[in-house]
């Protein structure tokens, strides 16, 4: 009891020190920049119309995003949730992209309206999807995930096809706090104040909701209505921030995490401290960016927040105690073992069929070709590496997804979230832009080195925390955020070298060679066989530490083994088709929804499904807009998302 008391005292105190540690340098930098301003009329103009509004906006945006993050994390009972989990910013981005392409002469006010409509529509659709699931946290997360994936993939496909026309949208999505008048502050400040007031009113009922459904019901709280109200509040505020400042990542996820790590235990303290942390964090970042000056003065704040925030999150992770319980996956009907085996065999046959179709049938110079004609056979030479590469990569990524979802008990877990894929992407970006080398061979090596480094970091971090799933996921998200921010920045720069990488980064088989495809298939077979040997671990790890110990195993070692297997498969799959396929997310869910719930059937079923999805997506991607080719990963997300939606009718 005394230790608990002591901890409680230490917590907020530590939080105060941390907040001061962020705020004092921010204020210092701001003062230093203030006296650097030129004198005279120009200096006055800059102070009133640029320096002050930007300072105010950074504080308001930081606090707003952090407040949204805290609310969303409490409602969804998921520490990985953030304001954009419900598809909000993906919806805004899609709407802006469409507006820029089809109505290029739309005035900027019209574009902001489009962004708000897009954000609202996406969020509403997520809630509609979750309606049948009684707006439970899991159904909301899945609904948001699906809508977010769909909108994100649609926006990315349009961006891939029309990148030259969309530089302004890319610039917007890298987030900027630059202000040349008070209009942004005038919009956001009242909204933040109203939202903060409402959040204070909601604090008590939300505390109960954040625990679990039964205790909330027993207190007579209408769960669905409360969740909708809280989410509407958070999302409306987040959408306004997105419209004024563009996409500023990390604050919504990071500030609540930092507040928790600094000792804010109850939701009430979190609702107070996390906006403070968010405001201090964003303000400090922005002042650092401005003070460092050229060439970083042009660095969008959204990018800088991710770059500075992610290491902070990593540093704080060991101090983070498991806060929210992760959502439980309710088990629906499990098919009997024999039928599960038959279904897996059926999926494997489906995979072979898909490969044959993708190899033989396709659009070409003079229209469709198929069969054994000379045309079709001569094209086979170019097609087979892509088709087999897609199959191998899809299989490995989906299998890795099964391991990670079982390991973490989190339905949002996927190889992409682990950070290993992002490490590969970062490796390639550094090679091309910092070292100045291009070419498939060096890029493959850089991707391998990048994923190996992230893997090593995950293990060093994991060993200290007993491979706690939540910390691993947060660390992975930190890496992914950095990668996403740098990629967005490079897209906004309009650099053709980035456009060259865009295909691979969006999950394309375009660059797969014959040797790589064969190596990929072998690696896929090996990893499936290796993972099957871990079937006992796979079956018991979701049941928790006690179950693992009951088998005489060490929980940390069991998790480390699964993590290693998942990471190796992820790295191999990423080398083939790039870091953004989302097959690793969809495969395991689809296998589970087909009734494949045993560890090994789910593994093989997900791998077969992953291969089918990737092969068919690649085939469609090559033929749909011939001669233009869409990255298969994007198409898989676009088509797989709604399919997942259809099949999650039963999720509660």
């Amino acid at each position, binding site marked *: 009891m005394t230790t608990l008391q002591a901890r409680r005292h230490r917590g907020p105190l530590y939080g105060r020190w941390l907040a001061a540690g962020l705020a004092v340098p921010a204020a210092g930098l701001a003062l230093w920049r203030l006296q650097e301003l030129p004198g005279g009329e120009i200096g006055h103009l800059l102070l009133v119309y640029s320096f002050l509004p930007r300072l105010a906006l950074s504080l308001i945006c930081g606090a707003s995003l952090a407040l949204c993050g805290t609310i969303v994390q409490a409602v969804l009972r998921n520490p990985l949730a953030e304001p954009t989990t419900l598809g909000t910013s993906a919806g805004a981005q899609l709407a802006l992209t469409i507006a820029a392409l089809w109505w290029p002469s739309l005035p900027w006010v019209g574009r902001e309206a489009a962004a708000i409509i897009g954000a609202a529509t996406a969020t509403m659709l997520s809630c509609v999807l979750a309606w049948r699931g009684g707006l439970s946290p899991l159904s909301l997360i899945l609904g948001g995930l699906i809508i977010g994936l769909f909108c994100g993939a649609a926006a990315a496909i349009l961006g891939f096809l029309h990148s030259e026309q969309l530089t302004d949208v890319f610039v917007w999505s890298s987030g900027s706090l630059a202000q*040349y008048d008070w209009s942004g502050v005038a919009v956001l400040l009242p909204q933040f104040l109203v939202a903060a007031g409402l959040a204070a009113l909601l604090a008590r009922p939300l505390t109960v909701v954040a625990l679990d459904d039964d205790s909330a019901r027993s207190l007579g709280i209408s769960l669905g209505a409360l969740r909708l109200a809280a989410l509407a509040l958070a999302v409306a505020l987040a959408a306004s921030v997105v419209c004024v400042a563009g996409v500023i990542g990390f604050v919504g996820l990071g500030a609540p995490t930092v507040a928790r790590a600094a000792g804010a235990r109850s939701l009430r303290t979190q609702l107070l401290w996390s906006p403070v942390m968010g405001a201090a964090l964003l303000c400090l970042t922005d002042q650092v960016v401005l003070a460092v000056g050229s060439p970083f003065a042009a660095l969008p704040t959204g990018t800088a927040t991710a770059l500075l925030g992610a290491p902070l999150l990593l540093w704080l992770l060991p101090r983070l105690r498991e806060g929210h319980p992760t959502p439980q996956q309710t088990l629906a009907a499990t098919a009997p073992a024999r039928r599960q085996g038959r279904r897996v065999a059926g999926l494997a046959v489906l995979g072979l069929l898909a490969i044959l179709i993708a190899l033989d049938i396709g659009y070409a110079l003079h229209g469709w070709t198929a069969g054994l004609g000379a045309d079709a056979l001569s094209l086979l030479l170019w097609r087979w590496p892509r088709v087999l590469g897609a199959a191998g990569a899809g299989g490995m990524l989906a299998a890795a997804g099964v391991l990670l979802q079982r390991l973490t008990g989190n339905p949002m877990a996927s190889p992409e979230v682990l950070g290993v894929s992002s490490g590969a992407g970062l490796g390639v970006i550094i090679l091309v832009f910092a070292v100045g080398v*291009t070419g498939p061979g060096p890029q493959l090596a850089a991707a391998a080195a990048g994923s190996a480094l992230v893997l090593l970091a995950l293990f060093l971090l994991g060993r200290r925390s007993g491979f706690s799933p939540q910390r691993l996921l947060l660390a992975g998200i930190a890496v992914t955020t950095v990668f996403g921010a740098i990629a967005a920045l490079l897209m906004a720069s309009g650099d053709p*070298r980035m456009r060259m990488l865009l295909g691979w980064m969006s999950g394309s088989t375009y660059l797969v060679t014959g040797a790589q495809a064969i190596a990929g298939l072998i690696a896929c077979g090996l990893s499936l066989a290796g993972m099957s040997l871990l079937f006992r671990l796979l079956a018991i790890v979701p049941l928790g530490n006690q179950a693992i110990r009951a088998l005489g195993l060490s929980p940390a070692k069991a998790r480390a083994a699964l993590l290693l297997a998942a990471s190796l498969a992820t790295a191999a799959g990423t080398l083939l088709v790039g870091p953004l396929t989302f097959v690793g997310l969809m495969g395991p869910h689809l296998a589970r929804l087909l009734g494949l719930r045993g560890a090994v059937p789910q593994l093989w079923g997900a791998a077969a499904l992953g291969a089918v999805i990737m092969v068919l997506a690649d085939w469609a991607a090559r033929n749909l807009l011939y001669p233009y080719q869409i990255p298969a990963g994007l198409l898989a997300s676009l088509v797989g998302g709604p399919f997942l939606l259809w099949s999650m009718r039963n999720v509660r």
Partner: protein
Amino acid sequence: MPPILGRRAFLTGGAAVALSLSARAFAASTGKVLVSLDWGISETLYAMGIPVVGAASVTGYDSIVADPPTPDGTRDVGLWASPNIELLHQLAPDLVLIQSWQAGLLPLLQPISPVEITTIYTRDGSPYARACAATRVLATHAGRPDAGAALVATGETVFAGCRAALRGYDGRPVVVMKVYDGRNFIIFSKCGLFHDVLEKLGLTNGWAGPPTLLCGASSVDLASLAGYGEANVVVIGTPGQKANQKLYDSDLWASLPFVKERRIKHVPSFWEFGALPTAHRFAGHLTAALAGVEPA
């Protein structure tokens, strides 16, 4: 305006055969069957009257570069960053033309045909000089070396006409910018094609900072423009012209000296990675905007 879903995307076999015939007939008389995978190379070839059997991102080219237009019958071979390899294999060109940043495609292209790499933008030196050299090399590959020399000479005539039209210019430095939205814009500096055109016309680029972007431009804060009160500001158009209004409506913009004194000029949209034809067109429009007259 969904460019890729447009008319051209649905050109089917028959039209493609007809068009490739014209490029092949040309090739039979002069040299090689060419494929261009870059807009800068495409515009240079079109300006010299050299047809290609296939070009990358034709719909995007026609909406962003636009002039000279893609000759009828040119086959669209897909995005310049990921051209359709199966289609290239079937078109069987004698030479594929790419920019240096497309070198990652070499392992895919080399089994199909020889590849010629052109370099115009490198973050140093003069893109204009390199574009002139590239024009001559491209013309030689197409078997028309005279056409290359002629295009470079035409440009010199255009610049001379512009210099004459600018004789009465007030001598203010010129800042060339492109606006993305209410808060973000880029300014063109050394190592960019537009800077080279300014020099060719005897004008001073008001922005002296080194470029941070490959096209020879920097993304800057409006605050750093506050010290450029003397300059004439030329805004290069973007497809969404009206998006600029948010910037023009802001208080800081409205209080800058060159705005108050109405020293802002507008020119149409130009692609920032263009080659010689882009330089020539930009010179004409810049002169018209600054001198208020059409160049000779």
